[in-house]
């Protein structure tokens, strides 16, 4: 996890800010946040303007969009996918569940909010957050890099 502090040249840092590729990971979400993520990619919001595209392989990802409370079933998968992502990467917890376990707090199958499992850079609360909020969160996260 120290790898995430990897130093980038100014050239690559510019590239990273102009072309963040997102990988979408559902860790037990009710699908509502996932639909909002898809909204962000539609012509109405068109995040390809900022170079953001959805990629299928975690190896290509720069931004890990995690939706949902982490369940016992998904815990090993979350760790696995986080290790697969080429660093540096930005981890974004989307929705009330990812940020704080939301209405599932205290359930028997809940392992915890995402930041107990992997380091989280950006929290986007909401049930679900609006597409504008998701874009805003990712942009703020990129400013951190």
């Amino acid at each position, binding site marked *: 996890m120290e*790898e995430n502090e*990897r130093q*980038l*040249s100014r*050239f*690559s*840092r*510019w*590239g*990273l800010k*102009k*072309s963040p590729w997102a990988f979408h990971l559902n860790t037990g979400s009710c699908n509502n946040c996932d639909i909002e993520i898809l909204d962000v990619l539609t*012509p109405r919001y*068109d995040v*390809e*303007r*900022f*170079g953001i595209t959805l*990629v*299928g*392989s975690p*190896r*290509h990802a*720069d931004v890990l969009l995690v939706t949902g409370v982490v369940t016992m079933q998904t815990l090993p998968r979350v760790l696995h996918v986080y290790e*697969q992502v*080429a*660093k*540096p990467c930005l981890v974004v917890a989307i929705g009330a569940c990812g940020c704080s376990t939301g209405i599932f707090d205290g359930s028997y199958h809940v392992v915890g909010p995402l930041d107990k499992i992997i380091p989280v850079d950006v929290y986007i609360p909401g049930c679900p957050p609006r597409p504008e909020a998701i874009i805003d969160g990712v942009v703020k996260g990129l400013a951190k890099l």
Partner: protein
Amino acid sequence: MSLTSLLTYVGLVAVFPGFVFTAVVGLLSSWFDRKLSARLQWRVGPPWYQSFADVAKLLGKETVVAAGSARLTFLGAPFVGFAAVVVVSTVLWMASIRPDGGFVGDLIVVLYLLYVPSLALIVGGSASRNPFASLGASREMKLMLAYEAAFLVSVFTLVVKNGGIVSLGGMVAYQQASGPMLSQGISCIIAFIVALIYLPAKLAVGPFDIPEAECELIAGPYTEYSGTPLAVFKLTKAMLLCVLPVFLITLFATTAWSPWAILWYVLILVFVVLIKNTNPRLRIDQALRFFWGPVLALSIVGIVLASLGL
């Protein structure tokens, strides 16, 4: 060989018209592809430097080598494909810029070297120990078997037509003397149509993006690649997007080094993007049947007509 001529050769391969020039044109072309696709979907699309930013970012990112993959082959394959495209781009542009420069048979060399990026993708994908990558590599191999036969026949239609000239410079000079190939009869027009169908399949876009079908195979052979090797693959792909239209222009429309060639280049790119945006992906068996059936038959009709002098 003197030092100056050595430096000239290095400059030809590394800067102009080889690596740097072709890479810039290729990356701008791949931006053009994305922008036009976005406009066709009523979106705004990425800014002009998008492809440069993609490559810049990937060059800086961590390179992960999956446990159990063949390390040397996995990391080496992208560079082999890249080197082949650099050589092809140099030979092709030089044939247009200085038609008297080449050597007999460089057409065959270019045809062989154009296989290498696809082969590198197959080898790299197979070495990465990932089921999606293996499946993508196997599809890439089948697709290669499908499209190459028809394209070779259409290229040799031109050789039959021009009386056995197999050097690129010679073909350019022949066309400068007696008009572009496209104006020399029905057989050449048929060959051009076959070459246009070959283009999206070779680039693995449009209805032929079967090897990297993102909703079935994650990213096909690219699945396990990250960081610099992925950047090299992206760059190779962008350069192919420049090299293949240039190859077609050299073969059919006299020379790639004239103002008219820019018009041809843009028209061919627009054709590829339009086909890509209006056709759903084929299954691999449908692609094989398409190329080995109607397309190969068409190209054989072309070569028969050419040998009859039409």
